[in-house]
């Protein structure tokens, strides 16, 4: 459903207690990466355009984060929605923090 993780350039991180807010709905975030996501299942109908605003609510032992971004739908069915996404406003610091939640950051990312 969410594709073969091994074929992706950015490895997907499976999540247990995280969510994606989209079109007024709060879907369980199943996995995500720096550029992709898979969230669901979807109870009822979810109407999304090809591009849409999204918010990731990330919760893990690394901490909590709320990330605003812009999503692009690749696939949608009852199991969930899968697609790509980018940060709403990106910066070197934001990218570094985002990568922290995917693993641990490269401290050199902060050096000017």
């Amino acid at each position: 459903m969410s594709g073969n993780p091994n074929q992706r350039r950015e490895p997907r991180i499976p999540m247990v207690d995280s969510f994606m807010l989209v079109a007024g709905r709060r879907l369980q975030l199943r996995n995500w990466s720096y550029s992709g996501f898979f969230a669901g299942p979807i109870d009822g109908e979810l109407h999304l355009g090809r591009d849409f605003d999204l918010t990731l609510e990330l919760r893990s032992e690394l901490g909590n984060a709320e990330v605003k971004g812009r999503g692009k739908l690749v696939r949608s069915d009852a199991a969930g929605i899968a697609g790509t996404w980018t940060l709403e406003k990106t910066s070197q610091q934001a990218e570094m923090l985002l990568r922290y939640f995917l693993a641990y950051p490269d401290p050199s990312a902060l050096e000017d």
Partner: protein
Amino acid sequence: MSETEKSGTGGKSSEALAGAASTVFDFKHAAFTLKTCVFRLDAQTSVPVMIVSLDSLHASIPVSKLKQSFGIDEGSHDDKLVQLLAKALKYVKEIRPGDSIPTEVLDGKASWLVDPKYLAVSRAKVTMQLVSWMQGQAYDPHASDAAMTMADDPDTKKRVQEAFGAIAEKLGFSHDRRSEVVDLVEGLCRELSYIEALREQLSGAARRLLSNLKSLQSVYGREASVMDSILRVQSILAKPIKDFGAALEEVDSGLIEILPTLKLYPQRVQFIREKRDKLREKYLLWEEVLEMWNNVPLELCAEASYAIQETYRFAASRFPQGQKWALSFR
């Protein structure tokens, strides 16, 4: 007695002092240079966290993860400061890079100021202890109103001067070192002024909160859901509020005799500071809800309803039913 002994710093951990080569949180790592970086206790878990807010990303990272995740070297300047964060957050609500390290962590002194009226209360009480000791009578720590009145009495002041001389003799000081006793007593009064402040601002205010809730019971008698919240809050908060009183009672009992207190001054100061810091930590937890109740009308109104609900939210989140009250005054 050395200055170190007088200041009562002997009990502070060498670990904390080692980290305090700097007196400010002057982190070197680039991660701490983020403009919005702030350290707080997580509102839900009370775990120390670093909070960063950027345009499209708000993150909360446990302090315990910083060293590993940002590649901070063991024993480095930043490592020592990170280790101090959890201790420091017991005394201040938030810390930003560049802030001073709370003095409680550095040398045991309080980093917060007390109103002079609390110093006046502690002076009056210590004065009455001195007079009681001179007269061979038992001192009653609860008679604070009487102490305030009697402390200003010229006869009392004369007896206090006599007590200084007699105590100097008992402590084995020569006559020309009588002024050291005066300094010790003044130092004791300053240390106890923080306890007096907490007696009023924490224990007193918390008891007034319970009293206000009791008054609102009759007002909200016909509002079943609000009434239920009032009763639950009273039930949940009764024990922690009682514990504040018990902790203060322990301080009073531990210092009831003036001569042993002055003989063991550094240890007694350390005892007072430990109790002060634990009570202060609780005060920071309660401060918002206690201040909220300062101006709540005790009548059926939106402000009272809001205060009840917020207090219930505070009580339910901080003292979950079935969980043992975590305050430990040893």
